[in-house]
């Protein structure tokens, strides 16, 4: 089977999973819409699929959840921010994962990638908030929520990563990349 179709469908799958993770457990948060687990999947998309496809899956998946949950005004920024976060996360992970000191502790590159992605997300939404609500403290108030969400994301990806490596299809995908 041609790899291209397969990659396209898996990208769609990751987008769907990102969207679901974003939608299933949501804690409405006054300052930044809602807090959710989606960032974990954003990160994993970047790691599993590489920058281009991973960015697409993360961005589109998160954007869909904004559209479906009724936050359309965030849709466009979300697309850009989450795609970018996945790309940065993926790059950091791939840079670190082959380093010898990380081989033993698989979580180090993952957490580093999570922090990298988290900076993008928090910073990105801060900029959006500044535009929407004016610069200053009002915009700053989005930061704690996003940091918390980022923490959730890292936890989720740390749980999921070992799980995913059990899945035969993912195993072969990661092996191919290495």
């Amino acid at each position, binding site marked *: 089977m041609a790899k291209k179709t397969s990659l396209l469908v898996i990208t769609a*799958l990751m987008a769907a999973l990102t969207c679901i993770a974003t939608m299933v457990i949501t804690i409405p948060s006054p300052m930044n819409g809602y807090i959710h687990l989606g960032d974990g999947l954003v990160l994993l998309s970047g790691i599993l699929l590489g920058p281009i496809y991973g960015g697409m899956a993360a961005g*589109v998946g998160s954007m*869909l959840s904004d559209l479906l949950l009724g936050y359309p*005004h965030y849709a466009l920024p979300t697309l850009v921010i989450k795609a970018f976060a996945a790309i940065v996360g993926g790059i950091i992970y791939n840079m670190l994962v082959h380093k010898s000191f990380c081989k033993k502790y698989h979580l180090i590159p993952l957490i580093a990638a999570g922090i990298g992605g988290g900076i993008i997300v928090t910073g990105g939404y801060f900029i959006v908030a500044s535009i929407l*609500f004016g610069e200053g403290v*009002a915009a700053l108030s989005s930061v704690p929520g996003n940091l918390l969400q980022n923490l959730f994301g890292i936890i989720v990806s740390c749980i*999921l990563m070992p799980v995913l490596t059990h*899945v*035969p299809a993912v195993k072969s995908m990661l092996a191919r990349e290495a």
Partner: protein
Amino acid sequence: MIRDITIGQYYPADSVIHRLDPRVKLLGTLIYIISLFAFHNIASYLIAGLFLAVIIHLSKVPFSYIVKGLKPILFLLLFTVMFNLFLTPGQEFVRVGFIKITLEGIKTAGFMAVRLIFLIIGSSLMTFTTTPNHLTDGLEKGMGPLRKIHVPVHEIAMMMSIALRFIPILLEETDKIMKAQSARGADFETGGLIKKAKSLIPLLVPLFVSAFRRANDLAMAMEARCYRGGEGRTKMKPLAYKKRDWIAYLCFIVYWTLLILAAKIN
């Protein structure tokens, strides 16, 4: 019902706005949002409000439904207003103890609140009147020109539409697996963070296994039906502008002109 989650906020009705080409709605929403930031004076906000009111009326979406959509941001709105009210420096208006409210503060807060409300209602109207599938179609067509700079427009749209297809299926699957593991005594609710995290594994492994199996099957089914990317593909439903779409564009031009005029007079 889980199965209908992918229509999102869509409010089914038969209105002119529902029937508009999704490209018009996408572009229109964008124009509207930009207009809110480009012009801020009382006259232009009046025009923007009037414009919105007409569209709401045409869309046949009940006003109560729209207001409901504002609820999640109510707190944010209040917060923003307070902030600008108390912290904007300028000419003093009233003073209660050490709290000072300035004229500029009132003005900024007012503008901010109105802009935010218009912004959210404006963009929500798009999701109220367009299903995600139509939006996907609109995006594919609307982004068509980007193909010239090698943006894989067709692939992105195809990916979005497959994702939309996967979402309800995967949600149903999650539910099924959760029940099946509960039948084996799994407990997803109680326990501390670590225990809860651990209890997700019996749910997530089968979910991912089956998700990837599905993806593999679907890719195979697509290939079996001669799918080979966007090249050489024809469209069953090519989006074609109708008269009402051109009229809609014209309305946006008139809207924008009015705004410019209003700004000039100011």
